[in-house]
């Protein structure tokens, strides 16, 4: 027996009416949202190294190519700057040859300790522009290193040779030691701090202040005048110490910001 269309529709309505009623609110299909969340969670760097790598990939080089040369060149500017004891006039002292030699030692040390990686700064696979930009940064680092020695070495006399020998001894020893980059930074920081204290706190205290005449100076500050003469200490204004303090801090900050490699 065949059913008519009207009969079929009536039976279907009856079945629908017999279904139990369930109260509830409409909710979104959460499958896709969960997937996105899981995906983004997976993409988030979990370890410190992953975070560092992610930051490095996002970096477009402004620290490396803008701030680092500016920091190092500022150190190069300040490293040879002194203020005259008489009238606070600028005195620009060019670095001695020994400063350039020590700066070369220091750069070799940076490469040996892994603070800088040669293949990470210069490579045939890099575009020429990148190699040139990297060379600019390293050149600025070299000048800053030379000037930081210029800053920390006494200008002349016996103290110059003593300090120069101490720096030579330290650098020469370090050249043959297995270093980590971080340890090298700590070691350099402590050596520079010691040299700074010795030159700008101790030796400057031994230096007699500028006076109208040698006789007057001898009468007023006999010990200082004798030590100044004996050690051939130059007389600079107190402001020199402040300038050189910032130069050393800037140099160490620049080293801290310098990456071992520029590869992404």
């Amino acid at each position: 027996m065949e059913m008519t269309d009207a009969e079929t529709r009536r039976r279907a309505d009856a079945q629908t009416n017999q279904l139990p009623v369930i109260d509830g609110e409409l909710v979104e299909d959460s499958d896709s949202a969960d997937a996105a969340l899981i995906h983004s969670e997976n993409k988030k760097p979990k370890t410190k190294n992953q975070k560092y790598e992610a930051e490095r990939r996002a970096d477009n080089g402004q620290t490396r190519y803008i701030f680092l040369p500016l920091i190092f060149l500022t150190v190069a500017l300040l490293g040879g700057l002194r203020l005259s004891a008489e009238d606070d006039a600028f005195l620009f002292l060019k670095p001695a040859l020994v400063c350039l030699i020590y700066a070369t030692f220091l750069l070799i040390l940076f490469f040996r300790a892994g603070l800088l990686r040669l293949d990470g700064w210069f490579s045939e696979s890099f575009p020429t522009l990148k190699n040139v930009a990297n060379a600019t940064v390293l050149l600025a680092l070299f000048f800053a290193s030379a000037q930081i020695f210029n800053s920390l070495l006494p200008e002349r006399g016996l103290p110059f040779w003593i300090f120069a020998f101490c720096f030579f001894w330290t650098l020469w020893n370090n050249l043959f030691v297995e270093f980590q980059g971080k340890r090298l930074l700590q070691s350099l920081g402590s050596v520079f701090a010691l040299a700074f204290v010795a030159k700008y706190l101790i030796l400057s205290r031994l230096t007699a202040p500028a006076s109208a005449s040698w006789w007057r100076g001898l009468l007023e500050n006999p010990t200082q005048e004798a030590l100044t003469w004996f050690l051939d200490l130059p007389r600079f204004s107190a402001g020199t110490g402040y300038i050189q303090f910032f130069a050393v801090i800037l140099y160490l900050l620049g080293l801290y910001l310098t990456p071992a490699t520029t590869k992404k």
Partner: protein
Amino acid sequence: MYSKSVWQIITVKERHIQILGIVLGAFYAIFIAWLYLVEPKSIEEVPAKAQESIENVTTKTQIAIGTYEIDRAKFNEGLAAFRQDNFIVARDNFEKSDPERRDAQTQFYIAYSFYRQGFGRVSNDDALFKQGLEQMNRVIALDKNFKSGDADLQLKTPIELKNEFEEGLKVTATDFNPFKVLRERK
């Protein structure tokens, strides 16, 4: 998003940063080298030193491209002072008119001023004559065939003037000749 730096927000390409870094670094390095070269005593002195350097570079460029000329006004002032026997002012003006010491005529006048100032009937001023002799060598190095067209000068060529300096510096028996006081300045 808010923690992103300005560089990242405006999405500057690394290539542009590198170019900017090279240019900024080069200019800053040149500025530092210039400061160490001219050694200004204070910040106030920096503009004056900059102007001096620009003038110096301009003169050097003029020499290189062959357009160097002496300052005619200063030269004429020097010449006027020279004719009035005011040799110190004359030399100052001559030196200012030819800062690069490349004009044989100006340098000849400077040497001549040493001669006239140092000439003495009884004895010459040896210090001025020595300076004049050095100056004369400079003129010969610039133009050994130089001949002055100034009718006021009796010694027209560098060789004549040099001989006068050399003779003036020597101590000979003729120096004790009492008639020497009658000789005239050339």
